[in-house]
């Protein structure tokens, strides 16, 4: 067999092996969570707040964490999108695309992306103390938004950069301004991609424990205002896994399963919605 054929085989084998590694990783993770958590997962768990002695194996559920996580992640995603979209637009050819400033902004976002979320948590905590606030829903949303912002902005930037120059030019040649072109042509064209970018950030946000540890706190109750502390699913998993009781540890897996299902539902919903809203996009 010639050397070229050997290389071809090797490349194919490498691709296959990597794919198998990725897929089996997913299957194993989900499998372990389902195997350990499914037995503890029941209606009581998703519909009730923890009652006394829940962490010792008592009755109740993790409704506080489910609601908390949803509010935290949705709030943070909305807040991050309010900043990420303008940043991403600013990086396009119409505004500062391909200039040195754009390079600096992109580089900064990439760096921010790599910062561990516990650092954002610590930063948020310092900020809260400076402002004289305590761990609260507000603090958690802001810290999570910081975690989500770089991913969302860069993902949106990449999506926007995929819009062909000819499409923008078609709009300009009709006498449209930059903003009109953005608003009426570019954004509708990439709407699906922008939603995906927001989802990516949402997924990271809702699963993040470290950034909300100091900033959102933890509580067995539902928050009544932005100033109240709030529970979250990742922390619920963390605390339950930390107990010495096998029963409670099993509930940790069930909580993780709930987290997975929440992400799945939101992802499917937004994909369906996106498909309906982007039927005009030009291929």
């Amino acid at each position, binding site marked *: 067999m010639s050397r070229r054929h050997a290389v071809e085989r090797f490349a194919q084998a490498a691709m296959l092996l990597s794919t198998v590694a990725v897929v089996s990783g997913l299957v194993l993770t989900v499998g372990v969570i389902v195997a350990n958590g499914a037995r503890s997962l029941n209606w009581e768990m998703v519909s009730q707040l923890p009652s006394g002695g829940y962490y010792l194996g008592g009755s109740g559920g993790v409704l506080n964490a489910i609601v908390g996580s949803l509010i935290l992640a949705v709030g943070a995603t909305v807040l991050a999108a309010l900043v990420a979209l303008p940043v991403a637009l600013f990086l396009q050819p119409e505004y500062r695309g391909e200039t040195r400033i754009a390079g600096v902004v992109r580089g900064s976002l990439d760096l921010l992306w790599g910062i561990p979320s516990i650092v954002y948590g610590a930063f948020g905590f310092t900020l809260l103390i400076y402002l004289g606030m305590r761990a609260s829903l507000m603090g958690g949303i802001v810290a999570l938004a910081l975690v989500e912002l770089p991913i969302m902005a860069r993902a949106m930037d990449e999506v926007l950069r995929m819009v062909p120059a000819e499409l*923008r030019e*078609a709009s300009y040649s009709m*006498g*449209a301004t930059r903003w009109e072109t953005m608003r009426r042509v570019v954004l509708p064209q990439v709407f699906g991609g922008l939603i995906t970018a927001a989802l990516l950030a949402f997924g990271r946000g809702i699963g993040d424990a470290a950034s909300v540890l100091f900033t959102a706190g933890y509580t067995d109750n539902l928050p009544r205002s932005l100033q109240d502390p709030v529970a979250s699913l990742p922390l619920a998993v963390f605390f339950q896994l930390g107990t010495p009781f096998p029963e409670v540890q099993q509930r940790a897996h069930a909580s993780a399963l709930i987290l997975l299902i929440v992400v799945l539902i939101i992802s499917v919903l937004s994909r369906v919605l996106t498909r309906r809203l982007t039927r*005009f*996009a030009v291929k």
Partner: protein
Amino acid sequence: MAHIDVRNLSVTYGRHQALTNVTVEIPDGAISAVIGPSGCGKTTFLRSLNRLTDMSRGVHVSGEVLIDGENILARGADVTALRRKMGLLSQRPQVLPMSIYDNVAYGPRLHGVRDRKRLDAIVQQHLELASLWSEVKDRLRAPASGLSVGQQQRLCLARGLAVEPEVLLCDEPTASLDPVSAQHIEKRFVELKQEYTIILVTHILRQARRLADYVLYMYMGELVEHGPAEALFNAPSDPRTQAYLSGVIS
């Protein structure tokens, strides 16, 4: 009808000189074909006329382009008003991500037409002008991207005409079309030249012979020769034009 007068137009992209000292007056109400081999600057010439060159980075434009006596390259020139005057039809039809109706209504809406009935009338009139109306009148609300390529190009023509431009800039408008669709478009051009000044960039020599009243021959960024079609095709004076027309260079 706008009058176009180009004086000493030079365009460079970084170090690459795309156009060198082009000076020409475009005849009104006629089809002027810009011909020449690939990379000779035809498209750059066209794009300078509605300042789409602004979109490229590192581009430097000098000289004057006078449209009705006003230099559009001057600082402070109103680019959106200029582009409204110059309809553009590009090589590949580029429909906008919206319905067929909204594609045609895009320009008029930008320029302030809000009245529903008037928009309806404008859309129908221009779709008819582009001979597309009968094919799409029952699905005006459908995505424009669902049309065939030939239909898309006619939609782009309708969209371009709907802002009531005075000049049509066409960059190889039939290059990606099947022969039947191409013929459709060519026929339209012949009718439209009564009311519009048409500048047609083409690398199809036979198309230029069929349609052009006036011809500009470009080579390596220079405007080598220009004149009435008959004269230029039958008796080119420059050896480079002769070489191109006889097929020595293509």
